Structures are given as C-alpha cells and as structure tokens.
C-alpha cells in the first residue's frame, strides 16, 4: 500500500507533524488485551455496583427503573438501526427517518403539542435549549424558574445561559407546588420565559390551569418539563396553552445506564417549528411519487447556517428514540393509561404507608402520580445506609438540592415495585428511622 502511495514508510505519512509537537514516545497506557480479559475486567467492575437488579430501589428524581421490554433489546440490536449515522442519504435511510417520524407523532400525542423534533440529548439540556429558543425569539432578559423544576435543569439553564446577559429568578414553592401568587408578582413584560415542571421535582402535580394564565400574562414563553409516563393519565401540557414541553426520555424504553445515554423530548406550538433545535423528520414523496421521509427544515441547522443556526446540536439520539417508540407501541393506547393508573394507586398506597410511620411526614399534600416526598425525623443519610444494609434503597435525599428540606426523601415508584416491595420499604424505613439519632 505504501508503494501505491509513493511513500517509503508510515513515518513519511506523518511528516507534516512538526518535530516540536511530536509525542516521540509510546502512549503511556497498558498494552492491548484479548477480548475475554477485557470482558472479565469490566464484568468485575460492574459487579462493584449495586444496581436496581441487586436491591429494591425507590430511586427516581428524573430517571426511573421501569421494565424495558425484551422487544426493545431485540430491535435495537439490529445493526441496521445500531450502526448507521445520521440519515444524510434518505434513499438508504428510510428506516431511521420513518422511526423518527413515528416517534415525533407519539411525542406530539403525549404532550398535546402539534410539533416535535426527533430528540435532543436529555432533559436538563433540553430545558436549557428551550430557554435559548425563547431568548432568540424575544430577546428579553429575565427567566422565571420554579423551584419545583429539576435541580439539574435549573443548573443546566444557568450554565448554558452564562453569556446571554440573562438573569434567573426562582419562584418559590408553597406546600410543594409553585406559588401562583409569587409567580403573578414576578411576571411582567420583560420576562423571557417561565419554567415549570409537571409533575414537579417533589412529585406534586402542578396546577397548570392556575399557573398558565399568570405565566403567560407578560408574553413570556412558557416551558414545561414533563415526566412522560404520567402523561398517560395527566392532561397534556398542550391543552393548557404551554408553548414548549420538554422532558426526559429515559422512562420510555431506555435503561438507567447510570444516567445516560437517553434522550430529551422537545415539542412545541406550531409557531416554533422553524426555530426548533435538533433534527426533524418530515414526510414527502420521491421522483416516482412514492411516500418517503427526509430530514427537513435543515436551514435551521449548524451545518447549513453556521453562526446563524438556531442551535449547535448536530445529532438526534435516534437509537434512544427508537427504544422510546417501540416501548410506547408495546404499551399501546390502553397500556399507558393502565400503567399510569397502577402507579397512581401504588404511589398513594406507598405514601400512606410511609406517612403512617412515626417520624415520617409527607412533605406536601398535593396530588402525586409516581413519586412523593417525605420528611424524616432522623438523619436521612444514616437512614439510607441502614436501609441499604437491608437491601432497600428508600429514595433520593433532598438535602443537596433543597437545604430547606434537610431530611427530605424523594420516593419513586415504577410498575416493578409491587405492594410487597412497598411493604418491605415501609418496615425497613420504620426500623431505620427508629434507630437513627433524631436530627
């Protein structure tokens, strides 16, 4: 091959690398290893983790241990979905493009909004992207953010907007939900966007009917982060007049994977379509009149518009979106409702069971669907350790994100947590709280 090139050595191919910047030594890493050894090493590392396979886990707070049906693994393993790149050549990418179109349809249905893109990376960066879209549209300088918005979303918005000259103001919670009076007071015609979460981080179903009118009073863009699974039974944000709905796609057919990869969904009112970030699949026909799908509205995007693009994102989380649409098809129209009802009932049961424990109080009294918060009359870290020793993970401690709930605990349910599991949580937590030194 070197002869065909006309070079006398591999070194000659690197002659353009100036002497002064050459590494001049081997990379300081171990030598390569055979497949079976790499497998064993990584298997042993994975075995050091306590996963939802190993304990009865009530962790949620944005990612949930739903059952991922086997059909998802089977379809995602197909190389035709697994190994192509972005569908730049639509003639040989109809599989990818059509699944995007189907996914967009499903997200539109869930959110009650007419247009969806083909995903962003995940929820918090999708929230920040929605903020960017709002800022591009109205150039106003104030973001109003509910304290019930996921802390990671609030942080991602703050980090991403550092150079925009915008300011973020938090709207406090009252009994677990966004304080409508405080929101009304803060709203004026210089607000760029208002951010809410539905249900919010503490599991409470926000009263969008009451919050949307004040939020939109000053002409701000209203952005709501949603949990997709409860949307099976909750009135969708689009019906309340929300402008943009975003959310975490992990609960839709994606594994926990210690936090990623997953996808962020992004749906909006029609007027945002030509400014939306991310890939969008659209329907069209080919030269023979056959139905087909393409990436559309690409003049929004960085590879065409460069510094004038509406966003810098290049790719969709297509494989994760595929998991989402397969899972939603498997659940189906009735199944998603049944799942939502099951979670509603079990969550109410769990909330009552835990609140009956001495030293455990509900943190708020709002309606919840799949997650709720309690306050412990004990050191929450110690309680969690004690429960872990019994093979139960009781939930997520709120203290880091909410110092005002120093001994708060966020407890999440999925269909994988049965009544027996909930009873076990209650008895384990009871023992742990009793033992722990009162805070």
């Amino acid at each position, binding site marked *: 091959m070197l002869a065909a090139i006309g070079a006398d050595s591999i070194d000659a191919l690197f002659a353009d690398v100036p002497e002064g910047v050459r590494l001049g030594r081997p990379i300081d890493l171990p030598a390569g290893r055979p497949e079976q050894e790499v497998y064993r090493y990584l298997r042993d590392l994975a075995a050091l983790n306590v996963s939802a396979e190993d304990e009865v886990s009530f962790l949620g707070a944005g990612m949930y241990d739903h059952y991922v049906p086997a059909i998802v693994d089977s379809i995602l393993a197909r190389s035709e979905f697994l190994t192509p790149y972005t569908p730049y*050549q639509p003639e040989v990418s*109809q599989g990818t493009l059509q699944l995007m179109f189907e996914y967009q349809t499903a997200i539109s249905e869930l959110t009650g909004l007419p247009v969806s893109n083909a995903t962003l990376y995940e929820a918090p960066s999708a929230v920040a992207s929605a903020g960017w879209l709002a800022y591009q549209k109205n150039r106003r300088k104030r973001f109003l953010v509910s304290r019930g918005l996921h802390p990671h979303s609030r942080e991602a918005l703050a980090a991403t907007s550092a150079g925009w000259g915008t300011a973020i103001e938090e709207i406090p919670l009252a009994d677990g939900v966004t304080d409508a009076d405080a929101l009304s007071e803060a709203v004026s015609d210089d607000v760029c966007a208002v951010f809410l979460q539905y249900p919010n981080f503490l599991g409470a179903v926000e009263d969008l009917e009451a919050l949307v009118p004040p939020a939109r009073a000053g002409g701000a863009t209203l952005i709501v982060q949603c949990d997709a699974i409860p949307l099976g039974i909750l009135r969708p944000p689009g019906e309340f007049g929300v402008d943009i709905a975003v959310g975490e796609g992990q609960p839709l057919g994606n594994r926990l994977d210690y936090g990623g990869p997953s996808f962020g969904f992004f749906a909006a009112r029609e007027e945002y379509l030509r400014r939306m970030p991310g890939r969008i699949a659209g329907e069209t026909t080919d030269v023979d009149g056959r139905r087909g799908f393409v990436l559309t509205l690409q003049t929004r995007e960085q590879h065409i518009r460069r510094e004038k693009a509406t966003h810098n994102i290049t790719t969709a989380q297509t494989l994760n979106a595929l998991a989402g649409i397969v899972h939603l098809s498997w659940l189906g129209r009735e199944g998603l409702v049944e799942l939502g009802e099951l979670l509603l009932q079990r969550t109410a049961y769990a909330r009552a069971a835990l609140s009956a424990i001495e030293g455990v109080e509900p943190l708020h009294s709002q309606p919840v669907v799949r997650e709720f918060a309690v306050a412990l009359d004990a050191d929450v870290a110690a309680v969690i350790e004690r429960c872990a020793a019994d093979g139960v993970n009781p939930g997520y401690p709120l203290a880091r994100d909410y110092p005002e709930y120093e001994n708060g605990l966020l407890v999440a349910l999925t269909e994988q947590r049965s009544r027996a599991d909930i009873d076990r949580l209650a008895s384990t937590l009871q023992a742990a709280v009793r033992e722990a030194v009162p805070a």
Partner: protein
Amino acid sequence: MITETAQQRDRARTIFEKSQRGRRAFVAPKADVPHEEGLLPERFRRSEPARLPEIAEPEIVRHYNRLSKRNFDLDTGFYPLGSCTMKHNPKLHERVAALPGNARLHPLQHPRRAQGALRLMWELQSALAEIAGLPHVSLQPSAGSQGELAGVLLTRAYHEDRGEHRTKVITPDTAHGTNPATVTMAGLQVVKVGTDDRGGVDIEDLKEKAGDDVACLMLTNPNTLGLFDTRIEEIERIVHGAGATLYYDGANLNAVMGRTRPGDMGFDIVHYNLHKTFTQPHGGGGPGAGPIAVSHRIEPFLPRPQVVRRESGDGARPEFDLDYDRPKSIGRLRGFQGNYGVFVRSYAYILSLGADGLQEASETAVLNANYLMARLAETAGEHVPAAYERTCMHEFVLTGGPMKRALGIRTLDVAKRLLDYGFHPPTVYFPLLVDEALLIEPTETETRETLDAFAEAIGEILAEAAEDPESARNAPYTTPVRRLDEAGAAKRPVVRQPLGA
C-alpha cells in the same frame, strides 16, 4: 436491504397506520393495592388517551424489522463518511454495556455503591488525558457539540475570572458548522479566519484578527480538509501571545493518536468524540459523548460534579467519589454524570487496543486514507482530483469541479449513484470552500480490497456518466425510494402522522 416488490414499496405505512382498536402487547401487573377513588382531581386528568398504536408484539417486531431493512448500515457496507469516523463497532462493547451492574445502575445511587462505575469513569478520564496530553478531563458533555459549548464556556469563565471581557472567537472558514454555532450559543461573536493555499490557517489573516478582544481560537488539526496544519507552533504563539486560549475540536483525533497530542501542540481545551475515535455505534445519529480535557489553568472551571479518586489513609482501597465542591465551576450542562453507557464501550475499546493498538489505529487510518486517495487518483483523478496535492491524514477532500465542467454531473449525482453500487457516499459539499467537495474518510477498519472496490466504483460511475450523464443524474435506481422532494418537505412540513379519533 431486502428486495421490495413494487406493491410493497408503495406502502411505507407507519406503525400508527397499522393500529387496530383493541389490539395490544402489554399485560399490566395486577392491581395489588386497595383501589382508591379521587386521587387525581378530574381537571388534572386527560379526557382521551394519547392515540398511541394498538398493535400486538409480532406486528411490532415485523414492522421495525422491515423498517430496518430500508437502512444502509456500517455492519453491512463501506461507510466512508468524512469527519464521522465510521469505524467498526466491536460487539464486546454491547455485551459489557448491557451487564446489569451497568445498565440498571441508577445515576443517583450513592457513590459508595457505585464504585465500579466511578472507577471506570476515573480510569477512562486518565486514559483520555494521556491520549490528548492534557491533565484534567470531564466526561460530562453529551456529544461533540455540547463539549464545544463546554469549552467555549470554560474559556469565557477563565477570562472573566481574570477580569478580562473578551467577546470574540476565531474559527477558520474550514471549521465544522458546530464551531460558529456554538460560539453564538455561548453569547460570543464569531470572527472568521481564512485558509492559505496549502490548506492551513492563513497566518497573516490570523495575526490581524488576534486582538485583545479575542477569547479563543477553535481549531481542528488535522483540519476538515484532512490536512495537518504544519504551522501549528506559529499559530499557538500568535493565539497565546494575544492572551487567548486555544481550543481543539477533537473530531479528527483518529488521525494522530500516539503521534502527537493536542496538549503537545499547545491547546488548552480539547473535546473528544467518543463515538468517533473511540468507536460507538452511531445509532442513526446518536448517542455519543463529548468529554473535554483541559490544562491546569482551566481546571478550576470544569463542569461539576467531577469524578475524583480519594486515597484512604490506612492503605485500604482508594475510594471514588463525585466532587460537587467546585466554586469556580461553570456548573453542569446536563443531568447526572454524562452518557455512562458510552463510557463503558469506549473504555472497552481503549483496554482492548492499548497504547500500541491506538497508535496503530491512527497509523492505519492515515495509511488507508492515503492509499484510497492514490487509488482514486488513478481511477478518477481526471474528473475528481484531490483538492490539495499533499499527504493527507485520516481523510481527504476531492473536488468535483472538473467533473461538473467536463461531464455535466455533480458531486450529488456521484453520491446517489454510489448507492446503487452498495456503498454509502462520502460527506458531500463540505468543507464549503472546496467546489463540489467529497470528504472521504475510510477509517482503519477497512481492508485494501474494500478500498480498491470503492475506487473502481467511482471510476465506473464516471465512465458511465461520460457515455450518458443521465445515468448519474437520475440515480439511485435500486434503493427503497429514489430521490426525494426535500424542497417540498420543507415548504409544507408534515412532521407527524395525522390521526383519527
């Protein structure tokens, strides 16, 4: 791809169109708690269920399997998409990523009970730091574009911390579109720098633009022309001399592993595309991951949390933890700890190849690219010559300008005709400054036979077109659909399936 009959071809039906009321796959777990009424006020309730498909499992499987066969994929054929590094995805990676200890690990599990994951991340950080020659790594960014955003925000934070308000970022006119788009998103202004006649940064132009209002130069080296900028040391002196930082777009890192490192070239910030250099199935666009590495002076600003290793005092095993206490941090750009599933695969790759293998991967990538460029000069050099007559790195650019003038066909036509030959086309019409560009990246995992076949296919397509240009202009002929009306799609967007009751 399957053979589709004319009848089947016309019926690209969506899963929603296959839905029949009452069909289903899901069996809900039994209601095992006492039923309680009124848990959710009626005004919070959906009036109608979301109109999701109603379909049984066999039909879901068949629907998506058939859809899959309308895709071209890397596991089936050559995919020389320039700038995307479509190298083989070893199957071991899927197996280790799917281990329950990884796949079912909750991101908020207490670090004490996620030691395997944190150790893997820490070891991956260390390996990436060594490969790039920069000491500190954050794995957090979700993809290259988010890594770039992190990098520009880091630069901004660094200058602000020093009390300097620098508002401009220089990007070459050959840059990936993400570079200028990222600058705008970070709230800074783009300044373009030109390209000299050897394909490198125009040094005189750079000198003129590198003023004290410049925060950063974003550079890809080798650049998007597949050329190593031989004047990188001079560029480094100019940029640092102006008090700006130097940002390395790691999209083309696959060219240089073990040969040179961004840190050695003087870069302050680098992003990696784990899905490119460290092989990740591209999944039809994603997922990927875009970790960043930085020099000591940028380190205080890295995103949080950061994975750290704490030595235990008593000689016991070190502990791995997440460090949130980073007062100068730019914060977080996304949720949780990043795309861990991607980290597992890329670390499996690094362990498998090792120091020697990574270097060999880059060397073979460069060898394959130069070989294919030489072969194409033989089979197609008259009509699609190399844009720059130089040794290339892992990819190279041809120009279809002479072809357009002599044969009356365009690069797009060649790309479409390649589909009939069973190849995925290269990246086309990028970089923008090359007329009728074809950006070709064969990667190290292709055989000489494949490269030969590709070069011959291009030659045949041009010979065919010399006889009858319509053969290329009307291509493709054998694909599930033929050329699609993209203008119509954009003019009257249909982005969802209309549904009945």
